[in-house]
């Protein structure tokens, strides 16, 4: 099929070849920017305790983000699906707007709220929570980073869950209740298991980008709460540059993501077989 040739050439050249180069450069020595001599030393350098702390923090924060998005997002999608058609369309539209809005703008909005003398401080002073010369100091904390990540990725969780709830055959929910299940029981034992593929897809869509996000920790975490994305970005764009180490870190991210995708296919398909 000649149709496939132009896109294949384009993607091969500008998507796959560059990724191959990252793998190759992770095995080269550091130079200016690269010395073309084979080494495994970059991977050995990853065992640095500071770096491992940051990788651990990234995994922890993106997992917490995924869980929070699910806990808020699933009931939200369920609520929206239950509305009458025009209300449903409106609410669905309202969850889409943040998805289409520039994420820098979304995260900047939280800086306006959380910074010293920001909206949160003014509110806390108005209700006498803190003295007028004090600040909540919420900006540049780990909590602010998780908050920003949940804010950014929430629509990515709601969207696939909403899609699977919309296709759901509600007679099954009815049947479970006719057979004596409580509504909550039917919710957890019929609805959630049968829409599980949507949940897993949402989890993947949140976890993968959250893991390597560097904008949120930069804006809301400051220097104290760096994530893996910040380290990678600095190795490439700030002095002193270290492209081989940055490439090795990028491959670690790809490995972690592959594990997540593997888990997705394993659980999505096993869930299918059981259901």
């Amino acid at each position, binding site marked *: *099929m*000649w*149709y*496939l040739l*132009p*896109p294949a050439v384009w*993607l091969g050249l*500008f*998507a*796959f070849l*560059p*990724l191959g*180069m*990252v793998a190759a450069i992770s095995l080269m020595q550091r130079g200016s*920017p690269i010395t073309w001599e084979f080494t495994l030393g970059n991977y050995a350098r990853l065992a640095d305790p500071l770096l491992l702390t940051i990788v651990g923090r990234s995994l922890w924060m993106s997992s917490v983000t995924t869980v929070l998005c699910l806990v*808020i*997002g699933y*009931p*939200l999608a369920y*609520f*929206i699906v*239950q509305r009458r058609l025009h209300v449903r369309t409106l*609410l669905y*539209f*309202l*969850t*889409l*707007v943040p998805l*289409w*809005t*520039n*994420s*820098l*703008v979304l995260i*900047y*909005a939280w800086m*306006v*709220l959380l*910074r010293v*003398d*920001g909206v949160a401080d*003014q509110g806390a002073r108005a209700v006498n929570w803190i003295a007028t010369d004090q600040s909540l100091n919420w900006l540049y904390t780990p909590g602010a980073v998780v908050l920003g990540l949940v*804010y950014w990725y*929430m629509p990515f969780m709601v969207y696939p869950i909403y899609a699977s709830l919309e296709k759901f*055959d*509600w007679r099954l929910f*009815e049947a479970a209740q006719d057979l004596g299940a*409580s*509504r*909550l029981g039917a919710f957890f034992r019929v609805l959630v298991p049968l829409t599980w593929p949507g949940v897993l897809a949402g989890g993947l869509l949140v976890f993968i*980008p959250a893991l*390597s996000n*560097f*904008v949120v920790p930069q804006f809301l975490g400051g220097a104290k709460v760096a994530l893996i994305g910040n380290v*990678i*970005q600095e190795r*490439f*764009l700030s002095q002193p540059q270290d492209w081989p180490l940055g490439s090795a870190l*990028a491959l670690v991210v*790809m490995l972690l993501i592959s594990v997540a995708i593997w888990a997705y296919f394993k659980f999505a398909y096993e869930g299918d077989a059981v259901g």
Partner: protein
Amino acid sequence: MVRAQQAHSARIHKGILDLLLDPLLACNALLAFTFLYFPILMLVLFSFSSSRYASIWGGFSLEWYAKLFHNPDLSQALLNSLLIAAATTLIATALGTLAALGLERFPDRRRASHYDAALTLPILVPDIVQGLALLLFFVLVFNGLEHVFDWRPALGRTTVIIAHTAFGISYVAVVVRARLSGMHKSFEEAAMDLGANEWQVFQRITLPLIWPGVLSGGLLAFTLSLDEFVITFFTSGPGATTLPIQVWSMVKRGVTPEVNALSALMLLTSIVLVTLSVMLQRRR
């Protein structure tokens, strides 16, 4: 389904938890929408404040918007963003549609599914990895060009366009394929039986049928390119500052009401774009 839902809501619930479920769901939805919209509303509110501080109300004023319109860096960034998004949309829509058509007609289903997986890779690979991979690629290719031809191109709008098309193609292909899978081959076969050649079939039958898919794919590519920050950050160089890059450097310099005004305008643009896309989906 509607009848089942009505019966479902008319049901008399048993148990205290069941009774609490609906109020709890409503509460969660209310809190979630407040969470999503409160920061945005505050941002828009303070963009109309005359105070020099981005989060303190000082009376209504449009001065920050006026300041924006007289900022030459900003108009250059907007121009760059629009040029890049337009070029990306053209290339990604053309190549993405070709990929979707090619995959749909591929005779060997097994191999087609492998190509399908390869096509979705640029959607799954994190933006930061794509960005740094392209940076490495461009720098090494440019080093090679300098070595051989004594000529070194610079990072700029062209490299950003190439970078944006690399993921745009995948998104367009996915959207167009969704449209193609609901389409009957019989129209194309009938046209061929009636003597149309391949180009005539494509132009008169296939293209009009998949046009809504192509259009929403193109709109998606345009929006994604306009919004893209991370990959642009790696591949733009100093000469091709786009709007998101401009926001990044303004925020790094400090939280100011001018950024609020710019953010409010970008928010308005995204609301217009979502409305367009929802309308396009309705038309299908």
